[in-house]
């Protein structure tokens, strides 16, 4: 019963990061590690339905992958041709001690290393995401290409080039020290959040193709938390992704138009993801070691806890944005904070807050959208119209433009 194809598929998916990363440590060659894993998966598809699933799928795949990888190397060097079906018999006996050895820090550093090599600083963000999805998550090149709206051939080429760069990077295979481990973890958290953000798209059509990204990022986030169960920033990252993703079904209306947070049907929010996210941010806060992911998650949590938009604790959101500005000074953070300020102190104060940002955010869609909306609230219609026009010119998608057009229409309605 447990060997049905869906179970095997899920078991292979969940074992992949651990298995590929252990094979990478063993072979010290990414292509070889991936090939060995593929081979092990093929054997699993044949063996598991017949002999029943192994107790520890990851350990089974590592062992079989390692042997098949060795066979491959031997075959290539013409030392010995070795089809090794016999390896598969009595595997359970070998499996248990191997699994024990895999447990603990080796396994943790393996996965961290595999994710870390995807964060190669020479790779542009999009390529880091593509490589991580391909190597760590095992998404197909076709799936990734479709999400990035490029041809499969183009994506294949990009991933091959990125992997070549990674191959030259010479990431140390020794267990990292505590400082280096913390540094790797921060880089890896960033790439997981990048994957998540690539899934957080601004059109329905894209949202469909990219939905797996957000889910995959959350899965990787849970994996990181299993490896580092006491890291408050990883709890914060996971909480942030879950709380944001909980609103996915409410972000567009039936015509594909954007629905702003204040107007969303909160009945469409995913309560299960909210429960998990709230539990995690509460856990993180107990550590009293705040960081940017935790603060952003705490903001998302205040939205999730509000029964309706009017109940939102805007003063607390304003304070959290102020804390985030201190940790991560950025004009975009200040722009976001201005929304809270517009609720607590009114549009005039919000407008004053973003006025100095024009230089840095002059070509940013959201800047002109927010500015237009504050001006509109102040009754400065002509200036609001100019701001909305600029926003439309900078819109990244048709729904973004359509959303601003609604503002323009309502301005016209008020004058006409």
């Amino acid at each position, binding site marked *: 019963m447990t060997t049905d194809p*869906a*179970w095997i*598929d*899920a*078991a292979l*998916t*969940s*074992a992949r990061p651990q298995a590929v990363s252990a094979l990478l440590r063993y072979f010290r060659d990414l292509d070889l590690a991936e090939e060995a894993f593929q081979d092990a998966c093929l054997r699993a598809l044949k063996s598991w339905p017949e002999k029943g699933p192994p107790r520890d*799928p990851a350990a089974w795949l590592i062992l079989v992958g390692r042997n098949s990888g060795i066979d491959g190397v031997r075959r290539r060097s013409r030392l010995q041709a070795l089809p090794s079906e016999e390896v598969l018999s009595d595997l359970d006996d070998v499996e248990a001690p191997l699994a024990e050895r895999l447990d603990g820090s080796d396994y943790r550093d393996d996965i961290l290393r595999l994710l870390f090599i995807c964060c190669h600083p020479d790779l542009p963000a999009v390529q880091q995401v593509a490589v991580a999805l391909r190597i760590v998550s095992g998404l197909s090149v076709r799936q990734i290409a479709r999400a990035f709206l490029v041809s499969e051939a183009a994506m294949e080429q990009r991933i091959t080039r990125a992997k070549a760069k990674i191959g030259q990077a010479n990431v140390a295979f020794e267990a990292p020290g505590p400082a280096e481990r913390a540094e790797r973890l921060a880089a890896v958290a960033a790439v997981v959040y990048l994957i998540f953000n690539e899934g957080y798209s601004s059109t329905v059509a894209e949202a469909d193709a990219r939905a797996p990204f957000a*889910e995959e990022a959350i*899965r990787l986030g*849970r*994996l990181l*938390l*299993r490896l580092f*169960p*006491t890291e408050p920033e990883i*709890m914060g990252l*996971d909480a942030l992704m879950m709380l944001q993703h909980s609103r996915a079904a409410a972000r567009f209306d039936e015509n594909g138009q954007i629905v702003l947070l204040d107007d969303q049907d909160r009945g469409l929010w995913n309560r*299960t993801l909210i*429960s*998990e996210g*709230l*539990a*995690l941010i*509460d*856990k993180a806060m*107990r550590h009293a070691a705040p960081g940017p992911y935790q603060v952003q998650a705490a903001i998302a949590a205040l939205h999730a*806890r509000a029964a309706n938009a009017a109940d939102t604790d805007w003063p607390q959101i304003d304070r959290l944005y102020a804390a985030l500005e201190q940790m991560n000074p950025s004009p975009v953070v200040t722009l976001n904070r201005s929304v809270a300020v517009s609720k607590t102190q009114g549009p005039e104060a919000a407008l004053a807050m973003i006025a100095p940002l024009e230089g840095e955010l002059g070509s940013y869609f959201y800047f002109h959208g927010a500015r237009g909306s504050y001006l509109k609230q102040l009754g400065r219609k002509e200036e609001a119209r100019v701001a909305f026009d600029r926003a439309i010119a900078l819109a990244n998608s048709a729904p973004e433009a359509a959303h601003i057009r609604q503002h323009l229409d309502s301005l016209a309605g008020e004058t006409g």
Partner: protein
Amino acid sequence: MRYAILCYNDEAVTSAWSKEEDDAVMEKLEVVQERLRQEGKLGPAIRLLPTTAATTLRKAQNLVVDGPFAETKEQLLGFYIVDVETLEDGLQIARDLAVANPGGAYELRPIALFLPGIEMT
């Protein structure tokens, strides 16, 4: 006679299920659950969130640690379902219970799905 049926599986695998796979499992379970409801045999059913969301209170030291209860020399002896605003509120209840019954640990794990089932008196 009442029994609790405790569900065990590899959460790394079950959380790798796609939404479709998850829905398919839930649908098959619902067929069984509906029959049990008709027969008046099904009390509350609960699906827990992953252990990564768990927090444990070690009663003797009044020590709160991240993650699930991991020792093997103690056994699962029972559980409470409580409805609270925050983890801190839940921990406070656990501490109050610990005063009444010291020894062992309480693990707080958020609930994903709660099906009340039939009234059992």
